[in-house]
């Protein structure tokens, strides 16, 4: 029995990834995990059973050939592994770090039934880093020039992906980005300690090398509109503008100083590098007692940023219980290790201000879980008379985002749904306007990096077909 290869594989435990100690990392912005070494990656890759009908592939929104790339890793061909992934996913160094593998590929891994799944995300990250560090980045062959031009609005994961694909298909591509630096949420939202900005910069450089033109500091809908782009001779337009508008609680006192939207707090810290003030000019409040409202990745990123900026007490205030937290498991785990305090079943009802209009407290009410709601999760219900006050000097509201109306409001005939998201065909990204496509968060509402990329890949194929008809 002992020479049964499957059994032997099952004996190798899931390999942990070395990381900074919690007490060290809560004082710096360096990336938390160090990544696999070559040896550890080889070992982990051997755990893969190479299933004939791999369920992991079906769990991946862009259907990466997961057994295929892991087989190459197991053979020691790390660069080959990276290239295998890149056949379907152009941003593996990013996805390996930020994808919710536990609800996508790893959850369905056959090994997960009896024990721990193959660490697909860690291996993806490993090969992508290996390729980048080796400098052996292949610039793929481009189709011959089609003479057609496409405009991509927004440079988040959706915009970067479709730009790469369309360039490879032979079209001339210009990306218009509102901010001064491309990358979307990858640059302004997700912190350095989770996704080093050098990785995003490398992807953007690669796109430029491929031949895409990037024009920062252009907000489409102010000055130039989508119709202007079409009139200027762009044959197709892709809208990957994200769901960038913040949502507030709409409770009394929310405009007090010291209360941020997560977008503002993270933009100051990540895009403007306020964590390096005064070397960088943009300031940021340094709260000692910080409450972050919400339970998703955005909330975890905010609360861990506040810790690193010197908070003594950093709370996650969430109206449901731990089981409903929508953040990636790894982020919750890291936050707990770093000393974040979780206040579950707690909902703020009012902010209290002190001298100089600065927030000093937050009145909350205790909740209990009732019957399941539309989302299938048990609905939180306030417990009468249970109000109490938490002392805070800074608050970050991280309860979600919504569609920014700038593009829809300035594009006549562009259909949106009742939340303001653009209506697009799930298979092609086609909108109600001819030649205009959309994907990512502006279509789905807040979703994930990989889903935005999946939309972009489908839209790239559809745009390619459309351009042939012109």
């Amino acid at each position, binding site marked *: 029995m002992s020479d049964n290869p499957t059994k032997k594989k099952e004996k190798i435990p899931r390999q942990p990834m070395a990381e900074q100690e919690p007490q060290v990392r809560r004082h710096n912005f360096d990336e938390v995990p160090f990544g696999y070494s070559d040896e550890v990656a080889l070992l982990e890759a051997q755990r893969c059973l190479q299933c004939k009908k791999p369920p992991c592939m079906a769990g991946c929104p862009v259907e990466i050939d997961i057994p295929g790339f892991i087989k190459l890793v197991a053979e020691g061909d790390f660069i080959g592994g990276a290239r295998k992934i890149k056949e379907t996913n152009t941003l593996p160094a990013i996805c390996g770090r930020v994808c919710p593998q536990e609800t996508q590929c790893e959850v369905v891994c056959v090994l997960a039934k009896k024990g721990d799944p193959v660490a697909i995300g860690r291996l993806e990250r490993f090969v992508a880093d290996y390729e980048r560090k080796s400098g052996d980045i292949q610039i793929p062959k481009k189709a011959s020039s089609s003479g057609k031009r496409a405009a991509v609005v927004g440079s988040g994961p959706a915009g970067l992906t479709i730009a790469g694909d369309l360039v490879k298909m032979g079209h001339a591509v210009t990306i218009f980005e509102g901010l001064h630096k491309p990358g979307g949420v990858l640059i302004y939202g997700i912190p350095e300690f989770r996704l080093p900005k050098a990785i995003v910069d490398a992807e953007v450089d690669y796109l430029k090398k491929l031949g895409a033109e990037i024009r920062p500091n252009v907000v489409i809908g*102010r*000055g130039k509109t989508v119709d202007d782009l079409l009139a200027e001779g762009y044959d197709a337009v892709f809208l990957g503008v994200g769901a960038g508008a913040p949502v507030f609680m709409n409770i009394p006192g929310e405009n007090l100083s010291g209360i941020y939207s997560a977008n503002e707090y993270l933009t100051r810290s990540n895009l403007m*590098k306020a964590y390096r003030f005064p070397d960088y000019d943009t300031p940021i409040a340094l709260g000692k007692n910080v409450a972050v409202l919400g339970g998703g990745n955005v909330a975890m990123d905010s609360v861990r940023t506040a810790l690193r900026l010197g908070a003594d007490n950093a709370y996650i205030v969430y109206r449901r219980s731990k089981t409903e937290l929508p953040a990636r498991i790894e982020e919750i785990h890291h936050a707990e290790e770093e000393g974040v305090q979780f206040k579950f079943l707690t909902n703020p009802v009012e902010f209290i201000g002190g001298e100089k209009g600065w927030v000093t407290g937050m009145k909350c009410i205790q909740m209990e879980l009732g019957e399941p709601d539309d989302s299938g999760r048990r609905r939180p219900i306030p417990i009468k008379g249970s109000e109490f006050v938490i002392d805070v000097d800074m608050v970050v509201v991280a309860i979600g985002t919504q569609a920014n109306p700038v593009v829809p409001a300035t594009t006549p005939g562009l259909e949106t749904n009742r939340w303001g998201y653009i209506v697009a065909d799930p298979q092609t990204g086609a909108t109600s306007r001819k030649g205009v496509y959309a994907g990512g968060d502006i279509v789905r509402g807040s979703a994930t990096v990989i889903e935005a990329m999946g939309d972009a890949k489908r839209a790239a194929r559809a745009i390619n077909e459309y351009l042939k008809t012109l």
Partner: protein
Amino acid sequence: MLNEVIENTKLSDIVVRMVIEAPDIADTRKAGQFVVLMIDEKGERIPLTIVDSDAAKGTLAIIYQVVGKTTAQLAEMRAGDRLFSVLGPLGRPTEIENFGTVVSVGGGVGIGVAYPITKALKEAGNKVISIIGARTKNILILEEELKAISDKLLISTDDGSYGHHGFVSDILQNLITSGEKIDRVYAIGPVPMMRVVCEVTRPHKIPTVVSLNPIMVDATGMCGACRVAVGGKTQFACVDGPEFDGHEVDFALLATRLRMYCDQEKQATESTRCTCHER
């Protein structure tokens, strides 16, 4: 060259006019809109009103007061230097129509912000009365330029060194008392000035438009740094404004939020005095 400084001229000891090459913005901008600029990659994004533009030359003009680190650095720049980024035009344009008689009140560097609006109102056929004021004579700007586009120009200085001794709001009050029929007032300047002007016009129910200057980051509606309360509702000044109905604005909130980073600003400037309490 894109974002090149074409000229950077002192209008007074603390106010500077800069002309920048930015053809796309010069092409599409309208009165009341602004740009966000960065001097270098480590710099802050600061909003400044577009005071004028020349579509043929592809340039636009801004007028800024030196109040802190970024504006001080800006004042050091010379023709031929390049800004790291210029984003615009941002904000809703001013609603321009022929209202009849309009009074445009500008205080301090707010005179620069008021200039393009006043000019557009004049071109739309309004009778334009301009009232401008400053602390003292030698920091009063744009007198000649405003005279050229106004039917009447009235001046005040806080210290009495020029024109009426007192505030722009006194002059407005006198105009109203003298029976001048006023259809609309525009008030642009320091927060206390705008607040007082709104109190002067409120009893007479004269529609009063103010241009708000809260702290901004992206200026595209993405962050909410710029939130102001208007008629009890939260609005984002960068996309819903910057102009609002002055009678509905919570000026106390605006003034508090403008002081949010006072300590850090002091640290950033070192050499320059923190002026935020004067705003």
